[in-house]
């Protein structure tokens, strides 16, 4: 340890400072685009897991079991290396050669579909926590099943699951580091690359650690405000004691 050449200035030296910033940008892009997909797909899954139709429920359950039980890294490799081979030749070639930023889109697809299964299970729990009377009341007042989901069940489910959804949102930032295995130059990948060039691993990994910590803290803080706004009147969580 005594031979370590400390150099904190490395973090603000060109071109490394730009490499770190571009890494941060890719981490944000992968995580945010993945989250959009996860929330959309997860909402569909959450609904599909609770509808009366058994076939739809079984299909959604199969989706969740696959994505929950295969390691995310293996899922990424399946999307990246195996999917183009399984598609018709033209589509496969387009994915492998012509699609710009193929690694980025693969990472978004992998993280989005994986996180969707977790978002879906969270929303399912949220929907199941709503008493059946609400559905009956909706149906008997003339709403269709789709309207019951759209106007009653989903809005309530989102609001009661804000804390769980927040931790999934933070997880997608952490999981986005796996994108480096298929060559996305995101934050972890960039700092490791600079560490290998300069041997200043401690400074660079400290920098990455601080950035990931800041992302989590900012998200947690922002969601705490959102949660207090979204809080449902009359629930235990909305007692004035923890305001």
């Amino acid at each position: 340890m005594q031979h370590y050449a400390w150099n904190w200035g490395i973090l603000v030296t060109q071109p490394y400072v730009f490499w770190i910033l571009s890494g941060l940008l890719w981490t944000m892009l992968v995580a945010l685009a993945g989250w959009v997909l996860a929330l959309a797909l997860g909402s569909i899954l959450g609904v599909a897991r609770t509808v009366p139709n058994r076939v739809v429920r079984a299909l959604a359950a199969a989706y969740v079991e696959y994505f929950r039980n295969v390691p995310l890294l293996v899922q990424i490799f399946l999307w990246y290396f195996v999917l183009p081979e399984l598609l018709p030749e033209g589509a496969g070639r387009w994915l492998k050669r012509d699609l710009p930023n193929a690694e980025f889109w693969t990472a978004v697809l992998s993280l989005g579909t994986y996180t969707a299964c977790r978002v879906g299970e969270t929303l399912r729990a949220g929907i199941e926590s709503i008493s059946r009377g609400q559905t009956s009341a909706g149906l008997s007042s003339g709403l269709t099943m789709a309207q019951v989901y759209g106007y009653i069940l989903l809005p309530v489910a989102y609001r009661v699951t804000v804390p769980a959804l927040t931790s999934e949102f933070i997880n997608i930032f952490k999981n986005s580091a796996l994108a480096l295995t298929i060559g996305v130059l995101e934050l972890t990948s960039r700092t490791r690359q600079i560490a290998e060039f300069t041997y200043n691993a401690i400074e660079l990994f400290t920098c990455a650690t601080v950035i990931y910590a800041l992302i989590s803290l900012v998200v947690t803080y922002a969601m705490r405000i959102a949660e207090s706004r979204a809080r449902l009147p009359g629930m235990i969580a909305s007692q004035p004691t923890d305001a």
Partner: protein
Amino acid sequence: MRIDIPFIVDHLPLLWQGMKVTLLLTLLGIVLGIALGALLAIARLSGIRPLTVAAAAYVDLFRLLPLLLIIFWVYFLLPLWLGRPIGGFYSALVSFVLYEAAYFSEIIRSGILGIRRGQINAGLASGLSYAGTMRHIVLPQALRNMLPVLLVQCINLFKSTSLVYVVGVNDFLMAADVIGTKDNRLIEMYGFVALVYFTACFLASLAVNRLQRRYAL
């Protein structure tokens, strides 16, 4: 495109070599991770302020970071500290233990906190010492409460070991990767890896669910 099943069968012995590394990493990670996690939980519940703060800081910090970043930290830092290379396997193992301990400690802590205070009072009132109350009354119930969550975390650890790929450890995924790349059979190899992980984790999850229904308090 044709799936070459005999190719997979021919390479089963090599894949098993990789699987043994995966299983060893999982097992050591679980045992050492739970040991460190239990220490952290005890520190956090001790009521001794510096210990509580230190344990809470540890848990919060490790839960903020991607596991991959922790693996890189250990992989670069530990050899620097020890003055000699330690290789991918030990780097990965140390990372898993440090990372999973944070999660295990939260599971153990909430298991203990889930026991009603009246149980401790009852134990003390019936003449047991504090340690005796903990050992005979609180911990058996806490263990029963936390067991399903603890087991789910063990399944997660089993899946996470595939990340040793980034430091070149010859685990199950890496073995499949090497074979598949050499003979241009990545589809068969990655497909097989996914199937094995899926089957193992799916069955383990089913078992945990059954256990949870039978032993829930």
